[in-house]
């Protein structure tokens, strides 16, 4: 069973719809016992970093998520990916789950249209099991105004070009994965990535 962490933020139903469509057993939950029992964990998220971290904290989920991320496949999506990092500077300095070293900052705007919204092509940096069986040109759907920076490039599996390298998929090379894009909104490519995660 995949536990989809329901902490009051984001469009968690899309993630659930996609997993249901793939026939993967899943449950929306904020129940610690259930999260501990799950085979895999999904951390979705749309919205602002500080308020999302506060919501996790108010549900006492921070320590259980950090602990479970050492034991079973764990995928953070969009803001859920950004929360895997050490720190964010969205509105205010705020600690993340610190599962992958790095920070979150505003996309350097200059002449870019913000948010980075739409389909962008994955450029593979490091081999990753989530990127198996994808077409040569794999486009995925993004919508975000803040971006991750990994302290160590070895944690970066794939990036996209948007005024520079924007991290798209990161991993600790053990259990933790983070996707800046929305696999649940990325058509067949996204469904394949979700399937790859379920197959871990």
């Amino acid at each position, binding site marked *: 069973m995949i536990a989809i962490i329901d902490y009051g933020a984001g*469009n968690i139903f*899309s993630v659930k719809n996609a997993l249901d469509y793939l026939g993967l057993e899943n449950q929306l939950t904020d129940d610690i016992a259930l999260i501990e029992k799950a085979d895999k964990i999904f951390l979705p998220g749309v919205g602002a970093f500080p308020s999302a971290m506060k919501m996790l904290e108010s549900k006492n989920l921070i320590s259980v998520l950090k602990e479970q991320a050492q034991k079973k496949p764990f995928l953070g999506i969009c803001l859920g990916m950004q929360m895997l990092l050490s720190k964010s500077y969205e509105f205010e300095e705020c600690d993340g789950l610190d599962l992958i070293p790095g920070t979150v900052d505003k996309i350097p705007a200059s002449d870019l*249209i913000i*948010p980075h919204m*739409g*389909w962008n*092509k994955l450029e593979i940096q490091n081999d990753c099991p989530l990127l198996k069986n994808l077409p040569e040109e794999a486009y995925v759907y993004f*919508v975000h105004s803040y971006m991750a920076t990994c302290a160590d490039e070895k944690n970066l599996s794939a990036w996209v070009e948007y005024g520079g390298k924007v991290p798209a998929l990161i991993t600790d090379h053990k259990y933790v994965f983070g996707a800046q894009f929305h696999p649940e*909104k990325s058509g067949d490519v996204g469904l394949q990535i979700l399937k790859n995660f379920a197959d871990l």
Partner: protein
Amino acid sequence: MLAKRIIPCLDVRDGKVVKGVNFEGIREVGDPVACAEEYNRQGADEIVFYDITASHEGRGVMLDVVRETAKKVFVPLTVGGGIKTVDDIRETLRAGADKVSVNSQAVQNPQLIRDGADIFGSQCICVGIDAKKTSAGNWTVYINGGRIDMHLDLLDWVKQIEQLGAGEICLNSIDTDGVKQGFDLPMLKAVVDAVNIPVIASGGAGKLEHFAEAFQKTDCSAALAASLFHFKELTVNEVKTDCRNKNIIVRT
């Protein structure tokens, strides 16, 4: 590189897909869930449901249609028409929409944009605009399906929208909508140059090359069409192939 998006729009009334020419002469063409699935197969980058009668007849959005579509179609869904309050936005997003498009209500109550962006994030607030050229040469914003001229300058309005926190603009030209002679490029260019958020071109596509033309002559992020796709004059895939042949980046 970020791909240019091709977006089919399903104008919906009473749970059925319709398409009007200049908003008049509506005729029905089918089931919205089936249409959305077909567009997904054709490679649509996003799908818009627009409740065409909602803003002047007070109809709510068709949440059941959205719910059913969101179970089968895994590309972004936008829902517009009849969204008046923060609760309407919440309900629509919970039904499975990724974005809402607010139009008349945003003109009458700009605070709706700010509240929506603050609570749900800019990324899910798209502001739809119907605008028309004046005899003075500028453009003004209309509400209620293009019926009422608000005498609000288009470029002032789009800057205000951006400041209020909208994540995207869907710009429909009343002058070119349904005429099939191409998008309103001067209006589109003026809006794209005035703001720093994505702009979707809407109204006027009649031929394959109109899409590539919009991307070549303006920096719009996406192009939307309804009847052209409904009546199978073109498929989304044909449009994308034409764009690709002209070196415009589109999703494969």
